[in-house]
């Protein structure tokens, strides 16, 4: 697909903006859908109706919300450290676009199939922490700072089991290319062979995206809005957008690593891919409206004393078995 873009636009310098635009559009549509879905799921689990007024089943509600956010005045508080404050949403959002270009949506639908795509995905998702810290520090606000500190602690803690569980898959597939990992799962998806790694990955991914029950970085009752307390208008919108985009990313990654990516009978590849991704997103929402928020010490203890040892043991056993076979 990257080659196609270069062919169509003549030069890679035109192809890149075009690709970025396509990805932004893709993410925007999906994020709007997911926000709508989140509100609907939340409502139904609480026996409410959710949005019903705008469009069929309130489908256009999120679009209206986005238009409202875009038309709002961008307020820069006087006490912030201006450079960090302004650059933070961009720093947070840019790696997400990069990550999105790496996923194989179906057999032929991939921008570029890198040999080390998995490393790139993990590295770029690690960059989000920088954006969060810039936002928290630059806002010069106690709630923002505390939210950012919590977020970073949590991200560091959960990145370890996340990567360890991914490594188990890499050892089995003997490759880091996402395309080839999916091809390896043509007979059975890895969730069957690696159930523990799949569970650990999904728990860690939920924590990485700061979603409930691991949403202490923006625990409304304690921290107002967390690291984006001081942001308004579309700058806040960008944080919001990034949050839901990173949900798409971790769910897409889980789909590729454990659910066999685009593979499935009858329906075309990308349909299967989206079915799986949206099922995982639904699972995340289901978590959110079921589980109460963890306390911070519980959260860290859970990561370091349970998930990391389990993931390590799983990795060890996987390595031994793969070596013996």
């Amino acid at each position, binding site marked *: 697909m990257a080659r196609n873009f270069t062919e169509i636009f003549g030069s890679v310098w035109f192809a890149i903006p075009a690709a970025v635009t396509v990805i932004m559009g893709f993410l925007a549509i999906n994020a709007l859908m997911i926000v709508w879905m989140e509100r609907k799921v939340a409502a139904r*689990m609480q026996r409410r*109706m959710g949005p019903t007024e705008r469009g069929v089943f309130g489908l256009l509600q999120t679009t209206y919300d986005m238009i409202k956010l875009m038309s709002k005045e961008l307020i820069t508080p006087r006490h912030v450290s201006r450079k960090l404050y302004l650059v933070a949403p961009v720093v947070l959002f840019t790696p997400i676009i990069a990550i999105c270009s790496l996923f194989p949506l179906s057999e032929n639908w991939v921008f570029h199939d890198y040999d080390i795509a998995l490393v790139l995905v993990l590295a770029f998702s690690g960059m989000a922490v920088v954006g969060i810290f810039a936002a928290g520090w630059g806002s010069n606000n106690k709630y923002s700072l505390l939210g950012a500190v919590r977020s970073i602690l949590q991200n560091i803690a959960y990145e370890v089991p996340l990567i360890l569980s991914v490594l188990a898959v890499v050892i089995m597939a003997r490759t880091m290319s996402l395309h080839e990992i999916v091809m390896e799962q043509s007979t059975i998806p890895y969730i069957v062979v690696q159930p523990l790694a799949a569970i650990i990955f999904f728990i860690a991914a939920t924590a990485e995206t700061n979603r409930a029950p691991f949403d202490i970085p923006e625990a409304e009752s304690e921290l107002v809005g967390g690291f984006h307390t001081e942001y308004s208008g579309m700058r806040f919108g960008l944080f919001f957008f990034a949050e839901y985009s990173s949900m798409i990313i971790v769910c897409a990654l889980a789909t590729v690593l454990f659910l066999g990516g685009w593979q499935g009978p009858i329906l075309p590849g990308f349909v299967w891919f989206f079915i799986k991704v949206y099922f995982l997103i639904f699972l995340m929402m289901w978590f959110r409206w*079921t589980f109460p928020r963890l306390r911070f010490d519980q959260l860290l203890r859970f990561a370091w004393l349970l998930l990391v040892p389990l993931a390590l043991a799983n990795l060890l056993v996987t390595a031994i078995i793969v070596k013996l076979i």
Partner: protein
Amino acid sequence: MEMISDVYRGFRSLLKGMGVTIRHFFRKPVTVEYPRERAVVSKVQRNAIVLIEKDDIGSHNCIACLQCEKICPSNCISITGSRKDGLAFKRPDTFDLNFALCSECGLCLDVCPTDTLGYSKQYDKAGYSREDFFYDLLDQWKATEETALGTLREIERKKKEEREARRKADAEAKAKAKENDDGDEKA
């Protein structure tokens, strides 16, 4: 070992919680979309009082006895009534309720001798001033008042005829009994 059982139990309770939420997910929402649909009011719901229609009259059967006015702890009912031609009982000329004072205690319903007071089903009255809550309970019966009076007179006339007939019968029976008594004495 303890840790493993802890993890197992924790995991099971998480799944149980998820079961609860997904069950609710597939149930119907309890929301009533108010302006478009209205909630069904319970039979015992208390509200502003109204005069209930009585089937045999085709209107309310208030006799302006003022018992509700007397028993009302908030003094929110005021009635004036007068005797109408051909009727045994009075009939109200005004029946005003100051709903802003009413505490919906229901005493007026209890004392009403003709059971013609009841609760309204309208639960969403709102207004901008105190005067908006001065209700004229006779308002809804104004149009049918003439025919109702006619029916009441008819009922009253029938009752009178019945009474006359009964009195006549009684008198005849008495006369007969006296005759018999007289006969007995002679014998």
